[in-house]
């Protein structure tokens, strides 16, 4: 069953700043629908009064990564798109994957070592023969 990797979304904005207008419109219009459509994500709306840091959308994932996206001077639809994108991501960091495959058990028959194809006299120690 699918488990959504996004734990919580924190919407930090100021109710008076000019660049948080999109954030305020998002909270008024689309935040409730977004929360209803994604029932396993907790949405926190925390307005801090007065001039403060820039409006930010903080996403926390199940593996502990915290991703912050600036929403200053963005429209409500763009913030909704951003939120859905973050909700569909997992918390793995976005870097180049070196190989598209990975195994914990690469060898089933035993990895090759210089003595695999040699006669077993070299490796096996038989019972010590008693001096007759």
């Amino acid at each position: 069953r699918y488990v959504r990797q996004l734990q919580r979304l924190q919407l930090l904005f100021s109710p008076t700043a000019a660049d948080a207008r999109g954030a305020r419109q998002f909270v008024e219009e689309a935040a409730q629908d977004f929360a209803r459509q994604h029932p396993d994500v907790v949405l926190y709306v925390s307005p801090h009064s007065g001039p403060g840091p820039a409006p930010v959308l903080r996403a926390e994932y199940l593996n502990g990564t915290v991703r912050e996206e600036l929403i200053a001077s963005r429209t409500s639809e763009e913030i909704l798109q951003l939120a859905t994108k973050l909700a569909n991501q997992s918390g793995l960091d976005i870097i180049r994957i070196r190989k598209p495959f990975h195994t914990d058990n690469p060898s089933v028959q035993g990895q090759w070592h210089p003595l695999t194809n040699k006669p077993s006299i070299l490796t096996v120690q038989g019972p010590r023969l008693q001096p007759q």
Partner: protein
Amino acid sequence: MVVLSAARWLRSRLTDRFWRVQEVLKYARHFRGRKNRCYRLAVRSVRRAFVRSTKARREKKRFLRALWITRIEAASLEHGLKYPAFISNLSKSQVELNRKVLADLAIYEPKTFKSLAALAQRRRQEGFLAALGDGKEPEGIFSRIVHQHY
């Protein structure tokens, strides 16, 4: 007083020179010498590094194929077969395994590789018999070609 335009003595300053320089220097941090600190030297080195990395993508394919061939040659010599004999007889027995997979098998599955070497050896013997023997039409088990109808 009404100000309709900025006074002519107000000139704009470049404020994000630091970040423009850091964008280049971040790719030069692991270089040797002054090219990892000084922007003027770093720009040239970073550009050459990027050009070399794009050109090397074509070389990487050749390099990896040569590496696989070396490994398969070493593994098949352990079982008494030379690389050209191994590869040609394997493809004549309709075993379409590429060199990457053969090299991985030789490292991680030595028994499977031994059986593949035995298969190639048997096919080689059948080829010799078919070419030289030509007496009593012996059955070549591994020389029969399986036709796939898709």
